[in-house]
């Protein structure tokens, strides 16, 4: 974990310092959006005016499809729930799904990729074919099938989150697998790994002391991709009616599904707010990922032009 922490501190903060212009703007916007998302998810119980499944308060029922008002800042849904509260609570669901999905797929993908890339042979060939097959397949369909298997299609908050996260995991393991395997193959042929082999170091030592940390340097980038895809898949599942039961948890995709009919009637607040929430979170995470990618790749990193005047001043001292 020390390595991971270092990766993030030197990675993110270092990146922010090295970045310039458009790239700095992208990175900072991304970080701000992501931080806001994390904060809202953490504080949803305090910030949300009502519960996610609340239909009434002391003044009676909220009413269905009410336009934004002082009581309901973002209006109410067709089911008579407060849109603002559902948007806020929805961030919590999204965060939980991301955390579970990313954690599980990293774990499995990294281990498999490392073993497969390092040992090669039949295990490698089989895993590559399987990963390619899964990768080439429409991920949403796979996620639907798995969510039906795991939860029967509709379920409570925790089992729903787990079901969604697991189906996303299965779909994204191949991605981590491919990346880590490729990096392992590359690292495996570096002189320092060969040097360890010549020394007679054991496979375990070579894999974990020499390859593991070098092959997982790009993980923060894939994690951001994985996280955004997790949200999009979660929303897609919800939109098709295979997500989390509305009485068990708030989920943006489900709310969008319920708002399809509203749109034709010109009722915009039920769809726009949860939709914008999805867009902003994915945007934030993707911006962070894109900037990390740019900054890590010297070809993509933007640099200012040199300034000769600045140089001449600096040289004044040591031109003896």
């Amino acid at each position, binding site marked *: 974990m020390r390595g991971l922490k270092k990766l993030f501190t030197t990675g993110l903060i270092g990146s922010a310092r090295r970045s310039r212009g458009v790239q700095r703007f992208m990175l900072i916007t991304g970080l701000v959006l992501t931080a806001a998302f994390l904060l809202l998810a953490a504080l949803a119980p305090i910030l949300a005016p009502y519960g996610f499944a609340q239909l009434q308060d002391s003044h009676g029922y909220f009413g269905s499809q009410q336009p934004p008002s002082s009581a309901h800042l973002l209006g109410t849904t067709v089911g008579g729930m407060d849109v603002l509260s559902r948007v806020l609570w929805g961030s919590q669901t999204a965060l939980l799904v991301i955390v579970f999905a990313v954690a599980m797929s990293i774990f499995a993908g990294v281990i498999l990729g490392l073993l497969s890339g390092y040992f090669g042979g039949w295990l490698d060939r089989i895993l590559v074919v399987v990963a390619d097959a899964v990768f080439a*397949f*429409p991920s949403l369909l796979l996620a639907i099938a798995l969510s039906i*298997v795991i939860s029967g299609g509709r379920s409570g908050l925790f089992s729903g989150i787990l079901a969604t996260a697991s189906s996303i995991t299965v779909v994204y393991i191949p991605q981590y697998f491919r990346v880590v395997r490729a990096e392992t193959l590359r690292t495996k042929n570096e002189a320092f790994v060969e040097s360890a082999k010549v020394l007679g170091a054991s496979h375990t030592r070579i894999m974990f002391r020499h390859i593991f940390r070098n092959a997982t340097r790009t993980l923060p980038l894939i994690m951001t991709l994985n996280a955004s895809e997790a949200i999009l898949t979660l929303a897609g599942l919800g*939109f098709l009616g295979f997500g989390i039961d509305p009485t068990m948890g708030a989920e943006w995709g489900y709310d*969008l599904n319920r708002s399809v009919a509203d749109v034709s009637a010109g009722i915009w607040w039920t*769809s726009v707010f949860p939709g914008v929430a999805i867009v902003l979170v994915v945007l934030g995470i993707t911006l962070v990922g894109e900037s990390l990618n740019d900054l890590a790749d010297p070809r993509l990193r933007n640099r200012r032009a040199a300034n000769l005047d600045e140089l001449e001043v600096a040289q004044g001292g040591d031109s003896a």
Partner: protein
Amino acid sequence: MSKSKVSLVGFFKSPLLRYLAIRFLLILPTVFILVSMVFFVMRAIGDPITAALGGRLTPDELHKRIHAAGYDRPVWVQYLEFLGQVARLDFGRTLTTNQSIGEVFATYGMATLELSVYAIIIALLVGIPLGMIAARNRDTVKDASARLFAILAYATPVFFVGLLLKLIFGVAIPILPIAGRASVSDELLLQTVPNASGFFLIDALRTGDAGLILDVLSHAVLPALALGLLTAGIFLRLVRTNMIGTLSMDYVDAARSRGVSEYRLTRKHAYKPALIPVITVIGMQIAVLLSGAVLTETTFEWKGLGFQLSSFLNARDFVAVQGIVALLAVIVAVTNFIVDVIAALIDPRIKF
């Protein structure tokens, strides 16, 4: 090098043929894995008859149906039977509507194909030029806007794009139809076209009726945009990165040193090497496109495979789902093969 007469594959004199053969054989394990995965995932739910008709039949009748369909046999027997069917390209019959999967594809496949074709065209027309402009004008406002557009296109779920397009062009400025593939009357008219292909635009063009063509096209605009923009963002980012990469290659500098114009450097030297990977990615996008099609078709009531799949799912008709998904797997594998072959033929660097 080609002293391979003794070897087994020495039979293939041409390395290209050998590549084609090997690549073609690779379809089989892919299809096998996917089909098996689909089968076991769907079976893990239990028998499809209980899932579909569980509430509506008495236990006795249910049992009879299950027995008649053979779902009480051991799973591996069913699995082998299913594999045998797939090998004969028989993907089963739906439970709820009692159609063969082949019929479902014949009825709805064209609609999805039509939508996908529009979407790919939009994606290529938007993604590739914008990607090139962004790469040529790196780190300028043009580049930043193009990239922001790409990221937004990716970050916005297709169905939300769909809903927004509906709100804007269907409700706020009602100029475009927001559901279906054609107006009801026109749809009936299209079915009377002799040898109708099901590809509405082609059928409408064959009638030569301008009103009909316009109606079909206007219905396609919003769904095609929703689905196309998603993929456009992916193409834009890919083209941009590849162009920046190729523009920094030594051979571009070498051509520059010979007096080749900057315009030609981008148009000739960077263009081709940067676009070859795009072809491969188009192949990979088939999967993304199909996922997107399910959502887009649901949003716009576009009566295609995705719409149909989603209604089979809601009806818990898992035999239909299994069949459709398995056939899609075959289609995806074959498309990827074709795309890989095209990429290999175009790229002179690929040595076999």
